[in-house]
């Protein structure tokens, strides 16, 4: 193995106490382990509702998960206070991974039957709530990776994409952003935002490594790329979902 000892990645997990539905903490474990297995130090910092101020200094990857509507509103009001800071982070190529509720709050707004929650306006998207929940296993085709992306969606929101962003993948099975657009998630600069739980990263090791590589390149210019790991088990778990819902490749 190459000497990766000099590399170090700081992961900030935003509000795991509020946004912690559907095993999203597995994404943090996945990033942490895949760095560790390559000899790269991973520092995970949890920023909770108890922290009065959240300091993004030194952040290499920021993760924000999903929660119930009630808890999402609390997070939104907290994050709006650091809107400019987050925007600057994204514009400078900072890596941000957002799932479900976290995805919605990066947009312009999230409108429910009762209220309209103002978003962080980092992504050119907006979300309206639909009458039904879109609940399904999901398989996506994504140009960047040979392995399809698999996950599980459970959302009432319908997220509409503006000109400035591209979808994460094309829906081969499941509903996706709106149920009829044929696409799921968003990729914008180094932001990956999606409705997919599962959790997202363990069964999609290529996506996880893509995220880690972006963070390492940004921090260490000239970074040579990640060495491969033995992903036999990850591939079996991924293939099971693809085979069941899309058919064997």
């Amino acid at each position, binding site marked *: 193995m190459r000497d990766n000892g000099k590399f170090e990645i700081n992961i900030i997990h935003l509000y795991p*106490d*509020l946004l*912690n*539905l*559907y*095993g*999203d*903490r*597995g994404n943090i*474990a*996945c990033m942490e*382990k895949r760095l560790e297995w390559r000899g790269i130090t991973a520092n995970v910092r949890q920023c909770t*509702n*108890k922290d009065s101020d959240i300091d993004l200094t030194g952040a290499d990857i920021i993760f924000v998960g999903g929660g*119930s*509507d*009630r*808890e999402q*509103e*609390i997070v939104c009001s907290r994050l709006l206070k650091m809107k400019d800071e987050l925007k600057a982070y994204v514009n400078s190529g900072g890596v941000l991974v957002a799932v479900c509720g976290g995805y919605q709050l990066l947009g312009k707004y999230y409108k429910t039957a009762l209220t309209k929650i103002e978003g962080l306006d980092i992504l050119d998207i907006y979300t309206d709530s639909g009458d039904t*929940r879109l*609940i*399904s*296993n999901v398989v996506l085709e994504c140009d960047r990776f040979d392995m399809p992306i698999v996950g*599980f969606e*459970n959302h*009432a929101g319908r997220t509409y994409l503006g000109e400035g962003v591209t979808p994460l993948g094309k829906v081969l099975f499941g509903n996706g952003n709106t149920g009829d657009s044929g696409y799921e998630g968003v990729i914008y600069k180094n932001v990956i935002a999606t409705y997919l*739980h*599962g*959790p997202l990263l*363990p*069964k999609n090791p290529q996506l996880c490594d893509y995220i880690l590589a972006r963070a390492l390149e940004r921090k260490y210019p000239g970074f040579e790329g990640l060495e491969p790991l033995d992903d036999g*088990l*990850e591939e*079996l*778990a991924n293939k*099971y979902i693809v085979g069941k819902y899309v058919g064997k490749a």
Partner: protein
Amino acid sequence: MSAIRKLIAVWAAKAASVAGRIVGKKSSSSPGVLALKICPNLISLLAKNVTKGVIVTCGTNGKTTTNNLLNSSLKKYGFTTVCNTLGANMIGGIATAFAQACNIFGAFKADYAVLEVDEASARRVFKHIKPNYMLITNLFRDQLDRYGEIDITVDLLNEAIDMADGVKLILNGDDPLTARFGEGRDAVYFGISEQVLPPSDETKEGRFCLKCGEEQEYNYFHYSQLGDYYCPHCGNKRPEIDFAATDVDLSESMKFTVRGKRIDVNYRGFYNIYNILAVYAALNTIGVKTDNFNEILSDYKPQIGRMELIPMGGKPFILNLAKNPAGFNQAIQTVLLDKRPKDVIVAINDLANDGRDVSWLWDVDFDKLAEANLKQLITTGIRMYDISLRFKYADVKFDLITEDMKFALSRCFNNKEAEVCYVLVNYTALYPTQTAMLEYQKEVGAALPPSESNRNGGALSAG
């Protein structure tokens, strides 16, 4: 006309149950579904034969155990009951229970209907039969793709309760989500009124105040979101507890005191305190005298897969069902209390009744199994790769992934290093696993020293 329809529906359900048993199907829901097709108002017609009251049990965990224990207690105290003991808790299962209670003339008499009802089905069921008493055990994350989020379950139950005029609620006061159903309604509360377990950092479900959204604090905390909670911001707090467990002692058997009565039973698992408290509170609220309660608890035979002992050639194999993070965390805690060198088999399915989404596996503290004196860890079930991946990223070494439960059992049976084997399964894995275990038991024999049988006898589970 409706009398004839009723009779035909009862016969059809009875015939379907017999046919189901002959072909070895254990579903107790489909005969009732068939009967309701023939006679849509069958349940309300038959409910008229219940003379003293209808008791409904809802809640995520422990509802089958609580409901069956309540039913068997009422029977021991001399009452006649109708009860969906097999845990089929949607409308079909309830119709089956009523049809089964009938004689061939479509008639029966019962003092009480004791019904376990699925939270999402409660509104549908209450259109046919209104409870006089409703017991809610707790609300945890469960089968999320069916229920959406826990807030939706709360809304569904609130609507159901409002349909049942004059209902008396029996609620877990340690659970902020459950206790809130009692606000402005006629309710009694049960709870555990002292610190019992060591502190844990597990995921808390409802840790934010339901009134103001600020973070709640706990004077003491049991598990998930259960404990003596209060909100420092708005003053919302745990209600006054009517049936409080104190002087809890889990060192050998399970002992605690409620309203001056000392409970002493040979059950395992902290969560069983709640199951017993709930039954005790229900009996008192209904107005049934609780004499000889300890004997009644000891006589109770739990349903399958609740820390069920299935000995294999002198070696204890213990089968346990858990359906969600709270249930699995409690099972893992019970495994950790057993210090013997052990094998563990985990079987995870993702059929409709399990919930198609298995992301909850990542909310279970599986990493704690690393300290369980494990000799072998085997994964199986439809989602065997997912559960294996969970162990991989938790740094817990697993030894084998196999589709074949019998092979897994033989590996554990032949492992001389382990003295006991725990088989942890989720919902639809339960029956096939139990069948495989009983078949394997036939091959190798049962034979277990009597001390071991006593130790495991009467164990209940949170499932």
